[in-house]
């Protein structure tokens, strides 16, 4: 990243030698692809203002959300949103309570297990949700018997689907911080492991932990496969259901969800940047 400044200076040289695109070529490519990629999003925005099929435009679909009886009309949708938010919170809790301590422990005490842990954490890419859900159905019939069928239980499956993303976010932070020296410094100053974890390691891992949390929230808010095939209600299944009766509201909420996910991921980038900027 620090190279970026020097690269920019050399840009004209690179362009002349053909290793980098000229300004015109760059903006033609980005312009054309960007334009094409804007079309579906713009179409959604336009659609959300459409007044039926007869043409004409209206604000009614947006203002309808604030009606007194909106809560009743879109009850299912609001349930889905509520469920997804709860699931996001529980999933983040799983990442922070189960994955994070294990990663720190492995990093400090079981360096030989690092590759194994990495391997486990990327399995969910090879075993996609649509495959996992086939085996999750019987598992959940047991889960329901043991802890009941509450909404939050779905987060137990989501904790697995976010593993690759959360792992990558935390690991890149772990690699960048000298965790071993830090914890030894803590030990020398006679802190116990709890104190080291809380006062020494976590503040240094804040960036990775935040990034892992945000990306987990984004994944959970977008999850459809598992919820749908286990007959649960979350934001995405509710959106699909609402779209059959009121496509305008479905599109409005889809736009809002996409915007929220975009902001979450944009802030991950920001967190990373400010930290590297100030510490190096």
């Amino acid at each position, binding site marked *: *990243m620090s190279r970026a400044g020097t690269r920019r200076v050399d840009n004209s040289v690179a362009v002349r030698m053909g290793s980098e695109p000229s300004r015109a070529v760059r903006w033609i490519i980005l312009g054309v692809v960007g334009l094409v990629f804007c079309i579906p999003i713009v179409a959604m925005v336009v659609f959300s203002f459409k007044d039926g099929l007869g043409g004409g435009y209206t604000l009614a679909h947006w203002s309808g959300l604030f009606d007194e009886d909106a809560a009743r009309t879109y009850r299912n949708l609001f349930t889905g949103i509520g469920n997804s938010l709860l699931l996001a919170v529980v999933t983040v809790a799983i990442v922070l309570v189960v994955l994070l301590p294990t990663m720190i422990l492995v990093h400090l005490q079981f360096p030989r297990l690092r590759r194994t842990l990495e391997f486990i954490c990327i399995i969910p890419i090879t075993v996609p949700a649509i495959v996992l859900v086939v085996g999750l159905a019987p598992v959940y019939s047991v889960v329901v018997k043991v802890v009941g069928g509450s909404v939050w239980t779905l987060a*137990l499956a989501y904790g697995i689907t976010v593993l690759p993303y959360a792992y990558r976010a935390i690991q890149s932070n772990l690699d960048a911080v000298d965790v071993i020296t830090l914890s030894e410094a803590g030990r020398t100053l006679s802190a116990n492991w709890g104190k080291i974890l809380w006062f020494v390691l976590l503040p240094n891992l804040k960036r990775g932990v935040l990034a892992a949390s945000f990306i987990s929230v984004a994944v959970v808010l977008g999850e459809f496969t598992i919820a749908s095939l286990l007959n649960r209600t979350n934001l995405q299944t509710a959106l699909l259901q609402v779209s059959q009766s009121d496509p305008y509201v479905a599109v409005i909420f889809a736009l809002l969800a996409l915007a929220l996910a975009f902001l979450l991921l944009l802030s991950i980038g920001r967190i990373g940047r400010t930290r590297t900027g100030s510490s190096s």
Partner: protein
Amino acid sequence: MTVANAPVLVSDAAESSTRRHSPSGPATRRPLRGLVKYLGLTPFAVYVVLFLAIPTTIAVVSGFFTDDGAFTFDNVLGLFAPNVLATFGSSFWVSAVTAVVGAVVGALVCYALLGTRADGPLRSFIDSASSVLAQFGGVMLAFAFIAAIGSQGLITVLLKDVFGLDIFANGVWLYQVQGLLPVYIYFQVPLMIITFMPALSGLKLQWAEANATLGGTRFTYWTRIAFPVLAPSFFGSLLLLFANAFSSYATAAALISQGAQIVPLQIRAALVSETVLGRENMAGALALGMVIVMVVVMWGYSVLQNRTSRWQK
């Protein structure tokens, strides 16, 4: 097969880590006392066994059993029924087409981004937008395409009114397998940008300089240096895109509400109706078929990634 790979990786890791850590030696690390530190691993281990290992095993193995628990090859042989083979065929076709188009367009965008600041606003905007579109679209992308090129969509109507062009002259194909192509490409290109950008920005300016010093042209730079160096990464990303399309379910489910046109939709049909082709546990057999394809593709991906990382450092 995924699990079978694990021991190899473990022994591999053990070797490399002893080599890496031998100078400082384990004595410099203060070990937690005995049992306690192993206890620390149990929550994650239990969790992963319960919600990853067991479901995966059930998914892959259940195809070999009837509902009564008797062993059978019936379901797995069902994978070779003509209509199931046709489903796998269209899944391969959709994944291959969208992976190739996505990889080429995505690589072009990466090329266009060369020479921009990695921490500048343009790159961070494209990074975040790519992540959103690549991984979290699902159902919402289906809405977006219905709004754009559905039968009353913005573009459909525009083309008809302005150019007199009816894109659905031969029937509305958006809700069929062909309809998946534009939508899948829409999330494949961003995934390509995310995975291929690090490789492309790893090209060193010195290589271009060396090429120029030795009298090479732009053409020789790309054909003799950049393409060979980027090839493993490009084809690796291509495989990742293929796997991504092959395993994606949400968008297809939202667009195609009934039927079993691609493998994930056939799994849906098998799960919902319990019997496909008059067989129980067909979902398990389909899941097994899918996992086999995914393991092969992802294995190829990791081989190519390892070749890439050789020069990326």
